């Protein structure tokens, strides 16, 4: 039963003035108790991985590939995937699903489109980096997609000379295709945004949501060093060019966002 504590008339504007008794009722509800031990361990592992990434992040350059007979099979598989992925896109499951159909490190939905699994490289998934199993796909009771994990950040170092004027076209051409071209490692690390975690922090600072998959390219923009980031969302793909030194505190956008058509 709701009880009504006596309150002086002068305190009517104060929060403790509550003739309904609801305040006392809410305050009397039991405390949820301490954070569960497994969650404490999970978050501690995430923090440790974040700390580790902050201290020692590296870019793994992609190796050049040569065209061979084995690629004929890959091409055939890609064609088959396109046959499945394109209809999926046309039925409204979003560009992330199409990227997933290329077999890249993007999120991959189930065939029903009702769940999503985030696959990220270990340098951008704190729990995974700490040896924790990736989270399983989850759905709400209504079948809505749940994005509880950060999206993948795949980084390459092509050294491509992008221009601001043609950024969308160039990025659309280069970063929306499967990684199959020869790429070179950067001569030296130039800044925070040249690591998966660093690029994610930079993009977060400029408003890109953490669940969105990102494909980054260490390159140049109008002759200056830049990181080109292709961000996928449910509504399409957007390109940003950021300074290699871009981070959570000093977000440096050189160009974009530009929609990829």
């Amino acid at each position, binding site marked *: *039963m*709701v009880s009504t504590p006596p309150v002086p008339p002068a305190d009517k*504007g104060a*929060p403790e003035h*509550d003739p*309904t*008794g*609801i*305040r006392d*009722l*809410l*305050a009397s*509800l039991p*405390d*949820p*108790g*301490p*954070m*569960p031990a497994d*969650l*404490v361990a*999970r*978050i*501690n592992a*995430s*923090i*440790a991985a*974040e*700390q580790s990434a902050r*201290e020692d992040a590296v870019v793994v350059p992609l190796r050049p590939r040569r065209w061979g007979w084995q690629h004929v099979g890959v091409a055939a598989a890609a064609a088959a995937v396109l046959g499945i992925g394109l209809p999926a896109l046309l039925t409204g499951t979003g560009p992330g699903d199409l990227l997933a159909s290329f077999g890249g490190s993007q999120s991959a939905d189930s065939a029903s489109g009702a769940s999503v699994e985030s696959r990220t490289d270990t340098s951008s998934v*704190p729990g995974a980096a700490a040896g924790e199993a990736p989270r399983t796909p*989850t759905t*709400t009771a209504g079948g*809505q997609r*749940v*994005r*509880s994990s950060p999206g993948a950040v795949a980084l390459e170092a092509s050294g491509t000379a992008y221009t601001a004027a043609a950024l969308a076209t160039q990025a659309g051409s280069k970063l929306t295709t499967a990684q199959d071209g020869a790429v070179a490692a950067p001569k030296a690390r130039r800044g925070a945004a040249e690591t998966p975690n660093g690029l994610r*922090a930079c993009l*977060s*600072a400029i408003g890109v949501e*953490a669940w969105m998959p990102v494909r980054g390219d260490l390159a140049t923009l109008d002759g200056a060093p830049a990181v080109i980031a292709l961000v996928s969302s449910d509504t399409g793909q957007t390109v940003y060019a950021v300074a290699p030194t871009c981070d*959570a*505190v000093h977000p440096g956008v050189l160009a974009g966002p530009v929609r990829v058509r």
Partner: protein
Amino acid sequence: MSTLPLRERDDRDLLRAHVAGDPDAFGELFRRHRDRMWAVALRTTRNRELASDCVQDAFISAFRRAESYRGDAAVTTWLHRIVVNACLDRLRRDKPTSELPEYELSDKRDAEGSVDTRLDVREALDRLPEGQRMALILVDMHGLSVAEAAAVLEVAEGTVKSRCSRGRDAMAELLREPSGQP
């Protein structure tokens, strides 16, 4: 930089140390505030799995965004804000149409006439508009001051007071027995 052991340093000092590169400072902040943030997340979402994800995302976000802490509010207020925002973002994303209009509760009760509308306290709280619900969770359930809740919710203090008052009135109406007696 303070030479005190981590457990003896205040929150602001720990956050400064974290920004400066101390590898253990943020872990101490987590240890210190995790239970309170867990309670906030759980009371906001009422779903343990969702609350777990939200509070994890929030602490990682705080780790990465520590430089953005300006020091004009307590570190706990800043952490509350990050956790609450993480929870509300998730709730809005997962249930974008679940929010009830401000006055739908009483309308529904009137329309149902003698139907027993008595709810338990948590169910009644869940049926409040988001602003009123969060104000009551922070002020009445977590004991935050109006000023602290206003800082967490990024609204004026008067708004928090008004939301608390209206939220309590709405809850009292929801919890009233069919006979009309409280």
